């Protein structure tokens, strides 16, 4: 616990998930690559050993007084398990190389990898277990699983995937295969010590597909998938819009929704009240060039809009803060969250 905080990070998060006001607005700085900076390693070397990620996450939590541990390595780790190539860069998250589904007929023979034996996934599970041993029940460990509907972008490329959507039989088969993998992967992380799973589903956002398609196709895929995951989930659209589908998202069984800075946070909070905890919505791309004053202002705005009543976790709007965001800015965000986030938020409405 820090300063005026009276609850542990986990207690704080659980209280806000119950749509009650905890001692302070929880702060989730979703930092994956910054652990490499802490250890003075390249991004590639950092992610090569689970021990590096454990040390990186512990340092990040201590430095920024973060209310979670983020066990996320990088998105392509999931398709790396299927045999896909991962391309590392020095200043950003690893990319997926060439897709491994070359033609639609490849889908018929697709088998999900065994999550307990694939080396890239085992690394994540080992890091999760070590972090759980280090943190215990003081802070939630947030694992990550890419939704069955969004994984194909990395499996076959976006363009080909959009074309596949016109072929229902193959599409449905791919969803079943991906669903089995997603459930196994999420549950393996929970078994290793993750408290909750961030369920990334950017392709399901109204930014990418019409809300009617979400209702007709994606809702049921997600409802079935989340029902088989043995722990709480946060559905994240990775900067994509969500407002037009929020009612249905709530009905999938998820507890949290990651929201975009491109939608009004007050409106989002009103739509989620009592149903979903709002996670967001600081602009990670813009954050790169924020001054300390701007950082404080953005944090205050977000807390004023979504903090009252609980049901809010302050975070970025993408689910991964860019490598380029400097330490001083992250410290300014943390300081502002600890200064202005304490309940009751008496300053809200008084122009504080």
């Amino acid at each position, binding site marked *: 616990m820090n300063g005026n905080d009276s609850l542990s990070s986990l207690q704080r998060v659980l209280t806000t998930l119950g749509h009650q006001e905890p001692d302070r607005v929880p702060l989730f700085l979703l930092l994956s690559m910054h652990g490499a900076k802490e250890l003075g390693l390249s991004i590639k070397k950092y992610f090569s050993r689970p021990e590096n990620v454990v040390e990186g996450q512990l340092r990040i939590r201590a430095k920024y007084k973060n209310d979670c541990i983020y066990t996320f390595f990088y998105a392509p780790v999931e398709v790396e398990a299927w045999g896909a190539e991962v391309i590392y860069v020095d*200043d950003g998250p690893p990319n997926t190389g060439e897709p491994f589904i070359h033609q639609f007929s490849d889908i018929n023979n697709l088998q999900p990898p065994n999550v307990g034996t694939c080396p890239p996934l085992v690394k994540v599970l080992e890091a999760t277990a070590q972090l759980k041993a280090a943190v215990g029940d003081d802070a939630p460990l947030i694992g990550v699983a890419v939704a069955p509907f969004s994984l194909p972008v990395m499996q076959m490329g976006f363009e080909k995937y959009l074309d596949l959507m016109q072929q229902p039989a193959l599409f449905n088969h791919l969803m079943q295969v991906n669903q089995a993998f997603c459930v196994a992967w999420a549950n393996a992380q929970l078994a290793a010590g993750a408290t909750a799973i961030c369920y990334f589903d950017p392709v399901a956002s109204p930014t990418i597909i019409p809300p009617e398609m979400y209702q007709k196709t994606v809702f049921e895929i997600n409802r079935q998938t989340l029902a088989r995951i043995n722990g709480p989930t946060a559905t994240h659209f990775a900067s994509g819009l969500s407002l037009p589908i929020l009612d249905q998202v709530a009905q999938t069984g998820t507890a949290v929704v990651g929201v975009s800075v*491109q939608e009004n946070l007050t409106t989002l909070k009103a739509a989620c009240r009592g149903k979903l905890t709002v996670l967001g919505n600081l602009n990670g791309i813009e954050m*790169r060039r924020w001054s300390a004053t701007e950082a404080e202002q953005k944090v205050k705005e977000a807390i004023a809009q979504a903090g009252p009543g609980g049901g809010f976790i302050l975070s970025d709007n993408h689910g991964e803060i860019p490598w380029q965001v400097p330490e001083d800015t992250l410290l300014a965000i943390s300081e502002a969250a600890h200064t202005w986030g304490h309940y009751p938020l008496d300053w809200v409405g008084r122009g504080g």
Partner: protein
Amino acid sequence: MTELVFELEKSLLSLDRLTARQLLARQQATTSSFDTVEQLIVPVLERIGNGWTAGNIALSQVYMSGRICEELVDELLPPGDPERKDLPKLGLAVLEDYHMLGKRIVYAVLRAGGFEVIDYGRVTVSELVERVQADRVKILLISTLMLPSALRVKEVRKKLNQAGSSVKIVVGGAPFLFDETLWQEVQADAMAARASEVLEIISRLGDAA
């Protein structure tokens, strides 16, 4: 004309190729192929692009609409047709990024707008600079999804300047939408907030090129 634009938009958003083709044929009966593109296709793509910016239309619909229009215009103005616009010379690339959809949508819009374009695919900074000069490209369009790729546009600008090139750079993609000043920071000449906007930008920059 307005009614025809609305009808075409509706057919594209519902992936109704047959109706879209019939609407184009109806328009072409009264104007040239070139005018059909200018007066019907371009306004429809612009409307669909605006709909995406406003959050009313999804990217999958933008993509499919662009693809259908590209096909239809290829029938109206086959590659090499004298009515196709090969000036100013356009290059299109993804810079050290493995996300290709944005470029594909821009390509479809350019083709549907009657333009010829050199598609460089995914390239490094050095490859892009070399090829742009060799091809004497006047306007270079760079599509990005990842922030590091967006930041590398500045290296392209620097190397082109060092080579004495006056090529105009137009950028687009998510990083530029989430930070409105980023296109200026990387020293691009313009930013397209949506794929269809490149048609207006090319017209503007082309006059200055």
